[in-house]
């Protein structure tokens, strides 16, 4: 029973308390770049959930059964980034063959994810936190969920901002950064959950 509760704690912590974008600053590039429309950002979020969960699982298996027993811990950065890059390619090919509908929805975002630092960040954090296989997968899923939540919320706000009359200097990046700051303050409220 206690095992189940700790998994829920990991999900809540990963998605809300330590939100990957708003409190850890991972995946900022896509957070700022691909958040002008709710629809596209939701698709990107879906692709991230998909890749991040699988990547966490594979990275954990590799670390536990290959890198750690051989004493090659210091190679983790190189191995993980290659695994993620290869994984993204495989997922892309697999989706193209088996589920063209899903590929249509997520396809264009998959190559972007290779350089999304959130994916590599989660894989490295899982090792630092000493998570086991199940915990890593759950943490990967939770983090991706938090990422999706943040990017969809920001996109929702930006769609509305587009229609409002802003002073010229604030247009573009500044207003997006201000929105992100306010969202970050709101997410602070979750810190009491931990």
């Amino acid at each position, binding site marked *: 029973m206690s095992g189940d509760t700790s998994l829920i704690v990991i999900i809540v912590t990963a998605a809300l308390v330590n939100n990957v974008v708003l409190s*850890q*600053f991972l*995946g900022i590039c896509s957070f*700022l770049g691909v958040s002008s429309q709710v629809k596209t950002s939701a698709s990107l979020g879906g692709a991230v959930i998909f890749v991040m969960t699988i990547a966490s699982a594979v990275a954990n298996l590799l670390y536990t059964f290959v890198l750690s027993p051989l004493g090659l811990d210091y190679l983790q950065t*190189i191995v993980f*980034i290659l695994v993620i890059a290869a994984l993204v390619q495989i997922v892309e090919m697999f989706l193209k063959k088996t589920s063209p509908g899903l590929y249509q929805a997520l396809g*264009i975002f998959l190559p972007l994810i290779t*350089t999304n630092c959130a994916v590599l960040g989660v894989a490295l954090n899982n090792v*630092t936190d000493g998570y086991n296989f199940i915990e890593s997968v759950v943490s990967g899923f939770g983090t991706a969920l938090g990422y999706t939540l943040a990017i969809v919320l920001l996109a929702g706000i930006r769609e509305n901002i587009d229609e409002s009359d802003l002073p010229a200097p604030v247009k573009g990046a500044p207003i997006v950064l201000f929105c992100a700051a306010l969202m970050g303050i709101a997410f602070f409220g979750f810190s009491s959950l931990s």
Partner: protein
Amino acid sequence: MNTSMERIYNGIVKENPVFIMMLGMCPCLAVTTSVTNAIGMGVSTTAVLVASNVVISLVRKIIPDEVRLPAEIVIVASLVTVVQLIMQAYFVELNESLGVYIPLIVVNCIILGRAEAYAMKNEVLPSLFDGIGMGLGFTIGITILAFFRELLGAGTVAGFQVMPSFYKPIDMLVKAPGAFLVLGVIIMVMNAWGISSRQAELVSGDGCVGCAAEGNCAAAGKCDKKEEEAKA
């Protein structure tokens, strides 16, 4: 020598990665809680950037075009591992406060971006200076950001108390939301002064401009506009 100075000027002023290009945002926001952290991060990134530019420029004619990106990633990841091991050995404290952001230099858009945009197409020496310029630009950018956050958020600069004792620090600025806020204010002031930056394009477009995955997206048909511009 002229090209070298031009590359350095370009990196620091014309294409400043932080304020103009808005690249490498993750470490830029995450480690700017203090000036010390920012300089540590800046120097590590510069070291990787200079070395990767030189190595990639050296091997640029050997790498087949199809495996360009994986090859670049492996080179960068190896260099980052070297930096990480050096940090663990000699700068224990700094390494602890920068944490996961040191290995994450691998996916810093600036490094892959410069490799793709400059080192793959140019001789070794200009690439070296391009790396130095961009690295300095990044270091200066994040140090400015860290200076304001630390000064107003903690009342100190690089750990030394500078604000008078009656000043009550604004805690929030050194916490997560403060990073977005301070960067937003700096860019707003720059906009008001009429310093044009590419960020409008970047944020309103599809986010591909200058991004390391640009080539990938172009293949997926996302950066058509950019492709056309490049051809023209």
